[in-house]
Every structure is written in C-alpha cells, then in structure tokens.
C-alpha cells in the first residue's frame, strides 16, 4: 500500500562534456515533457540529471529511443512550507525518523513546496513517516 506514495523520478545520465545538458533539455522539449522539479549531480565520469515530470514512463521511453541513458528511480515527496525554516522542519522530520537520505532536492511553487528525496528502502520509510503522522505526497498531489 505504500507503493502509491512512490514518486517516479527520471534519472538521465550524461557524459561530462559541453553541450550534453542542452541536448537532454532539447530532447525533453521535443517529447513534450513538462518538468516540475529537477536537480543535477556530478561524479568523476558523468553527471546525472534528475527530474520529476508529468508522464515519466513516456518520457523515459522517448529518451531511450534517442540513445540517452535513462532510468526511473523511486523517490519520496513530502510537503514543505515555502518560508524561512521550511527546510529545517523537513530536515527535523527526516532526522527524527532516523532516515538516511541519499540525496534530496526541493521544488517551489509560490507558497507550495515539496521536498523530494531518495532512500534505500523506500516502502519501509514511507510506513514510518505515515505512522509518525507525517504527510507523504502521492504522484497526483504534485
């Protein structure tokens, strides 16, 4: 039942070379993919472009067709208030629940904001958050 709280994120892998990000952005535009949130991380050999999009399955298929290395990754989203201290509230929740976050990033839209994060065992973490009375967002909430 916790699976309905799993948010599908696109993880697009890009070689660290100039122009690759523009290529990804162009491909997303061509496929009519609407991005709600994204974040970029880098390792030694390549970078990863993580994005929350409208129709992740379709976007994933389209990008793969273009020869782009892409994966779907499950993340968890919790609401965040867009005011000073908003991040601290979220961090406290996650810290108190002793959850080990692999990475996380926020999405802001006027007063509304969401915090997306990835953990190792998402279903168990969702159970814990729900049990602690914390609101966890579903895909349709975003």
């Amino acid at each position, binding site marked *: 039942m916790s699976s309905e709280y799993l948010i599908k994120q696109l993880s697009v*892998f890009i070689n660290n070379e100039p122009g690759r990000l523009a290529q990804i952005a162009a491909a997303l535009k061509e496929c009519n993919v609407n991005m709600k949130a994204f974040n970029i991380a880098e*390792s030694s*050999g390549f970078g990863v472009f993580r994005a929350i999009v409208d129709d992740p399955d379709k976007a994933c298929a389209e990008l793969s067709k273009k020869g782009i290395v892409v994966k779907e990754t499950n993340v968890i989203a919790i609401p965040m208030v867009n005011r000073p201290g908003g991040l601290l509230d979220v961090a406290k929740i996650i810290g108190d629940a002793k959850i080990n976050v692999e990475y996380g990033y926020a999405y802001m839209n006027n007063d509304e904001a969401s915090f997306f994060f990835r953990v190792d065992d998402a279903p168990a973490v969702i159970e814990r958050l729900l049990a602690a009375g914390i609101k966890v967002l579903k895909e349709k909430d975003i």
Partner: protein
Amino acid sequence: MNYWNEKMETMPLNEIKALQLKLLRKLVSEMYISSKFYHGKMKEAGVKPDDIQTMKDVSKLPMMKKTDLRDNYPDKLFIRPQSEILRYHVSSGTTGKPTIVGYTRNDIENWSESLARAFVSSGLSNKDVMQISNGYGLFTGGLGKHYGAEKIGATVLPTGTGNTARQIELMRDLPVTAIACTPSYMFHIADECERMGVSIRNDTKLRVGILGAEPWSESMRKKLQERTGILAQNCYGTSELSGPMFTECTEQKGIHVWGDLCLMEILDKNGDPCADGERGEMVITMLQKEAFPLIRYRIGDISSLEWEKCECGRTHPRLQRLSGRTDDMLIIRGINVFPSQIEDVIGEMDFLTPFYHITVSSVNYMDNMLVEVEITDDALTDDMIKMEKMKREFDRRLKDVLNIKAEIKLALPGSMPRVEGKAKHVTDTRSYE
C-alpha cells in the same frame, strides 16, 4: 679511473665471442641436466648440449617467453635450492601473477660487477656520491644500483622514491654528484628545483644521471642535459636479467652490453639474425646466471646492436635506443603494465562490463594512465555515493595489482567503443620528441 675491469672491457672481439661460446656450452649442459623445463624444451626441439659447437648453433636452442615465466610461477624455473639463493625480487607479469626472480651469491656479484663497469664507463668512481631514487624493495632498481655503486666505492644516498622536496634538499646539502632514477622523475626533479628556487647547475654538484626503467629518446636526453647540465646516461635491464645491468659510456653512442654476461641476439621477423645496426627483436641469453638462468629469452623489446669498437676503447657491443615492443606491455612511470592485468581486475568487478579503454599520456614528462570502463546497466544508479564507492573499489584493487595509481573514469553503459583486438584498447599519446 678509465675502466673498472680493463681486461674484460677491452677484450678483443674474437676473444669475447670465444668466451661466449664456452659459457653458452656450459650453460646449456647445466640446463639440460638441472632444468626440467628446459630439458623438456630441448627434447621437444631435438637438441642435445653437444649440438652447440659454434655460435651459429645458438639458433637451434629453444626460446623462452614471458608466458613460460608465468606458467612456472613462483620459482619452478630456478635450478638452485633455496639454501643457495640470497634474495628474491618481484616484478609484474602478464596476468595477475607477478614474475619472481632469485639470485645466488654469484648472481648478485655479477649484477654488481656489470653495474660497476657501467658506472665507471659513465665517469663515476669512489669520488662520487650517488643518490639512488629508484624504488627499493621488491623492485630491482634501487638495490641493484646500490650494490653497483658501493662496489666502485661511491657513497650511496639511498633515498628511494617519493618526497621530492626532501630529495632535492639532500642533493643540495650533501655533495651528491650522481643520481639514479627514471628519466621522467629526473624531469620532475628539474621542475621541482625550479619551483623551489634551486639551480641544479649552481646549487648542487650533480653531474651524472643514470636513467632507465622506461623508454626515452635522444631529444629527451638533449633537453635534460641542456636544462640541468648533467650527463644523462641511458640504462637498460629488467628483473629477468637481474635488474638494471648496462649503461652507456660517456661517448653516449649506445649501451655497452657486457658479452661475458649477456649474449644478445637481434632477430628479424623470420627469426634470422639482423645485420649490425639493423632493428629487430632482442633475444637474450644470460651466460652466467645461476639461480634463474635464461636462454634465448624473448624480452619483448625492439632495438639494434652496434658491434663496431667504441671510441671509449670498450669492445663490447652497444645497444641502441629501444624503438618499441613486440607485445602490448606498457611502461608507466618505470612499472610494467599489461592491459591483460587491467582486464583481469575489470573481470573481478561484477559492476563493470568488459568494455574499457586505456589512455596513456605524459603530463610534464610524468606518465599518466587513464582507465575508462563501462559500468553495467544494472549497477548504474543515480546515487553518486554508490557510484563513488564502486569507483573506489576498482581503484584500490587496480592499484594493488599494478603497483601504480591510475586515473579512473566510470563510463555510461554503451558509451565505450566496441573494439576487437588488444592493441586498440590502448592509446599512448606520450611523445618523446
């Protein structure tokens, strides 16, 4: 001091050749009796010790290869018992297994003798202080030169590798006149000296460099000599031969290969002897080695030999600059690296595919090796901490196996070129010009 061993070093050529035949026949007889491996090889080739009557008969003898060393790991090619062996050295082999060499007291003595002659021919004597910046330990470079330098009564400063700033301080503060290291390390020292404001010409007494363990060129020598004012001497030898063995004399017209210790053949593609000065595959017989004899060993290097008497008065042939390898061995910062070793480590990592590429380059005369390898689709994750962990695991294992640090890049699935044949896995952009 002109010669270390004048009688031997200036022996007329016909006498050297007669001595070589005598030593070869003795060696072959001993190997036929004592070496199970070589006895089998001779039987297979249908040769008996008595078949070796003239120097031309050497071509009847079976050859030894690097793979023979690997197949007889660790010490099956030794023909002396442990009680007669004074030391082991170890170098990297073609696969995960290293090559182990052993020395009797006479082997160490001959090795030191060879270098003593070489050092004196480079203008060194007991009035010199030699800083040995080659690796000590399992590598043959440090201890070999150490013994050679002590033999001629020079003062040794056994710095070993690393901590360049301290090496330069010692060189400046002590009357160091000679240094033994790789050519690329000598360039590095020159760079560091500049950075530290130390002039090799004015602030040190350095005048000779014994440089080897990696291929280099005449133009590198010229640059180094102009820059530092030292006599930059080329040195040759590998652990199979004992270690570094031979250098040029001050004429710098090739490396004197002592004929009483080493019979060097240069063969063309058909296995026939090359003419004087003609390039071919070097095939080496060590005429006086006891613990681990080598007969017609295909060392993998390509060069030529000049037999004309040297202006220095020495009669022994001169080995010219190496011009390549017969196999895919790479020499990185003086260490032998085989792509197959890297392939083996890649095979051990279940998160890596067999698709890889090695790029060797020279950055300020220091070798750099980049290993790019594709990660499997299953292992690919957007969790960069996990990616770094995998990279580190590969990095650590590779360093353990190769004994040198490589730069590593994990590549995306499908991004590495699919190539056939080993050579294409390597791009060597080092330029010696």
